[in-house]
């Protein structure tokens, strides 16, 4: 019996590309070409489909999706390291990237450091005057509360409302970074 799951291809593609675009919209990924977002997502997904028998095997589309995201993140790191080695690009606090710098992390290369003051300021701008969202950002970045349930208790909202705030922030973060940094392929 074939246990391979059927895929909702549009949802799978939308979600994978949404994540890749979020990464590529970050200023720190300027070292690589924004056009690579499509290639990155496509290669990770096809790799995982191809190696399905090594996925557990995954029984659901969601399981496959999660594996594809992790694969995509590894590929992105490789891509950035490779691009950094071809150029004189240096990461904050590190010399030229590559295997000689095993401490190189995703947060050094892809994600903005949300602990940095300048990044925090931009986060508060993304709240666009929404006091609840500001309190949420404050709770995570200043009070160091990271569990959804604990954040919900502190803000006196439901955990689902915390999730909704995360989604709002994710969208605005991607949208904002894209406008501030570079044009992506059409």
């Amino acid at each position: 019996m074939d246990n391979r799951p059927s895929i909702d291809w549009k949802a799978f593609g939308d979600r994978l590309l949404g994540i890749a675009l979020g990464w590529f919209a970050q200023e720190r990924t300027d070292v690589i070409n924004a056009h690579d977002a499509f290639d990155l997502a496509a290669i990770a997904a096809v790799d995982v489909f191809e190696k399905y028998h090594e996925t557990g095997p995954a029984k659901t589309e969601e399981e496959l999706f999660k594996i594809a995201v992790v694969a995509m993140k590894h590929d992105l790191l490789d891509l950035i390291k490779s691009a950094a080695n071809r150029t004189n690009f240096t990461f904050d606090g590190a010399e030229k990237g590559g295997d000689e710098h095993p401490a190189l992390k995703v947060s050094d290369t892809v994600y903005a450091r949300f602990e940095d003051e300048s990044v925090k300021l931009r986060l508060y701008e993304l709240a666009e005057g929404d006091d609840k969202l500001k309190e949420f950002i404050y709770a995570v970045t200043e009070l160091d509360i990271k569990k959804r349930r604990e954040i919900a208790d502190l803000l006196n909202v439901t955990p689902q409302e915390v999730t909704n705030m995360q989604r709002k922030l994710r969208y605005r973060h991607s949208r904002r970074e894209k406008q501030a940094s570079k044009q992506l392929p059409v």
Partner: protein
Amino acid sequence: MINEGRRLTNVPDPEPDEVRDALLGNDTDIDVETAEKILQSHGLSSDPLLEKMREMMQERIRNYHQTGTNEAEKENLQYFLRDMTNYNRARSPEAVKPEGWIKSIIDNTTAGLFPNHTKAQAYRGKDGDLTENDQNLIDSIEAELDDER
């Protein structure tokens, strides 16, 4: 690409970022609606991505077929390519046959599904008036609404 020597289930997340996950949610938890909004804000859709994936799967299947190797990988790709083809076929306009829907409505075959509902005739006579049945239906709905006020 994925390290050939490792099982995919054993490939760890390179570096979980607790602060980022707490602020934006874990990447893998992204919902379709948020993803669509991000894509729209960039003026993009996932259609070119799916097309690229389809071409890549076809290319790899061809290569495996020519070399006669990697039977498991080839079967996996064939399955997912077929799944994508079926998905696209189901979403294509040709797959929606209006004749079937219209016929089922006329035959009142939906009555079993919606026994308490009376179907409305969405057309008017040549003189522009509603049919007697439709007028009665609207009158009865209006009466029900009046009762509720």
